């Protein structure tokens, strides 16, 4: 090609084609720079703060105090109780989200043709912002306005039933978080389910599989990787949830739903103890990385090999 081009009397002008690598760089470098500014800079700054004591009274000052912030976290009772609530909320949310998502997907798959449009409608709860979902679930859970009182009323009781009680508020919030997220899970699982050839169910019938065996051997295998991915996504989302809990319960009643993010918010932005808050936030980061890493080790690696 090059030879013919050289020997041609007047080679036609050609615009140079860029290589795949240059094209990839051109479109990704701005994004990388943007990420660097909005993620790496605050992260580095938080890291810097976590080794200092920050004061605002009498003028801003940052005093180096080494690992003092970090060691203080270990002896802080509110950190451990908040972490406990975060883990409880996360485990419940993940299990509920996946279970409800799977259930929804199964229902949506078997909808008769004239009800298929419901498949599009079901995504709506996911379109509600966590902020909105928080407000929604406050009204739904409260004694005066809530669904608990309403249901009790149907059975002729005039008690007010408050679902946002200190004892079960975390469970109640997990239900709301699952309500918010499960439709998306259902959507992806449904898409997965529709790739399974219908004839595989006929094969299961010929092999006289029970309903449970059919679910296990035919329906579930193509979903397992999606379920793993969503268990990771939901774990991260649940651990970093703030806005939803902030609008739903503000950590209450009496701190019963003060998860780690809420406690962090109070330390850093109410008490303005920025150095200590920054140090504690790195513990949250470690918990998130640890949890997803554990999920990958225990489950993800197995799915990957198949």
């Amino acid at each position: 090609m090059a030879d013919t081009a050289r020997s041609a009397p007047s080679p036609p002008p050609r615009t140079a084609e860029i290589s795949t690598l240059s094209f990839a760089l051109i479109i990704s470098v701005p994004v990388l720079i943007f990420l660097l500014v909005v993620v790496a800079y605050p992260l580095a700054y938080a890291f810097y703060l976590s080794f200092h004591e920050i004061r605002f009274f009498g003028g801003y000052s940052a005093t180096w105090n080494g690992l003092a912030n970090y060691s203080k976290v270990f002896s802080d009772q509110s950190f451990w109780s908040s972490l406990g609530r975060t883990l409880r909320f996360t485990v419940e949310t993940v299990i509920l989200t996946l279970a409800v998502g799977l259930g929804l997907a199964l229902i949506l798959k078997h909808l008769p043709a004239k009800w298929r449009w419901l498949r599009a409608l079901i995504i709506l709860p996911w379109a509600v912002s966590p902020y909105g979902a928080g407000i929604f679930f406050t009204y739904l859970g409260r004694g005066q306005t809530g669904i608990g009182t309403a249901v009790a009323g149907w059975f002729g009781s005039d008690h007010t039933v408050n679902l946002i009680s200190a004892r079960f508020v975390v469970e109640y919030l997990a239900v709301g978080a699952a309500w918010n997220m499960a439709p998306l899970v259902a959507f992806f699982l449904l898409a997965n389910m529709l790739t399974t050839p219908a004839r595989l169910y006929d094969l299961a019938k010929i092999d006289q599989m029970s309903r449970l065996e059919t679910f296990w051997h035919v329906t579930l295998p193509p979903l397992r990787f999606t379920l793993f991915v969503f268990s990771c996504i939901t774990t991260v989302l649940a651990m970093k949830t703030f806005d939803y809990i902030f609008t739903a319960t503000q950590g209450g009643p009496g701190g019963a739903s003060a998860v780690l993010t809420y406690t962090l918010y109070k330390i850093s932005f109410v008490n303005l103890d920025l150095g200590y808050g920054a140090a504690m936030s790195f513990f949250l980061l470690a918990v998130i990385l640890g949890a997803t890493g554990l999920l990958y080790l225990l489950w993800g690696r197995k799915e990957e090999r198949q």
Partner: protein
Amino acid sequence: MARIDLHNIVKTYGSHHAVENLDMTIEDGELLVLLGPSGCGKSTTMNMIAGLTEPTSGKILFDGADVTSHSPHQRNIAMVFQSSLLYPHLSARDNIYMSLKRSGLSKQEINARIAHAAETVDVTRLLDKMPSQLSGGERQRVATAKAIVREPAGFLLDEPLSALDASLRLSLRAELVNLQKRIRTTMIFVTHDQVEAMTMGDRIGVMRKGRLEQIGTPTDIYNRPATLFVAGFVGVPPMNFLKGALEKADGRLWLTNPSLKMEIKGEFANAAPQKEVILGIRPHLMRLTEAGASALPLTVYAIEQLGNEAIVICDGPDGGKIRVVAPAGFTAPVGARLDATFDSAAARLYDPASERVLAVTGKA
């Protein structure tokens, strides 16, 4: 092994008639091929024999016993599906094992049967592989092992070879026929490929629009197609059709059209005269000849060289394409005039209205 009878089977989906009034018998140990274009009802028929679909009305008998309402497992059938479906997350061995899981056989017996089935179709060394690690042909063999391990009364195959490439299809075709003759199982094979049907079947049932057009041996179907559809569907290159009128003159029967006048001899010599008929003649039974009253004037459209022979595709006098088989290497320029003739005793006559072969009274 079983003889399978279908009695007046009807299957409707709403207002759509998938299968209409189907009567058919598949003999014990026979390989019957159900042939037809997609949507002709052949897969529905197979599903009803398998017990996956319940007929709207009619009866299915296995060895004389009514199994119409029995589940697939109670009928003891085995099935191989299109693209040789296997459970994707189970190894070849576990896939085969699933066929026997509910059989109540002892572990030893099951292992022996799996080993024997695997050996029969030569997949012993593949038993511990996953379906995704197998080639198309290997999957097909494993699916076959999964089917025969049950020692089924009926072995149903729904276009198992259609997703494979041509050369593999060719060798697996022979393998399946060989297997069927060795284990002597009643086998029903569904396909839309008429070459597959011709080469595999003891008998072929040709279906169209939910009806059985004709059932018979491959030779029968090829030489004596009962309907225009069967005539056009079976055979490569396809049968040629000529329009004309049947007229009696001098005590003899003549096919006439503007470019041809030919005496009808043989089987149809005693057919009743009628204004419109369609004559069907296989390309192999035509030959190029000198121009004449009983020769068909043709214009060359294209020539296909097959090595052992050449197929001359021509525009016929009534607008349709006429194919004539010529000796290998035959050439003629496109647009050239040719004449072709044939022995009318080898031709078939069809009624264009009913699309069925003309009735003949007595032998000629």
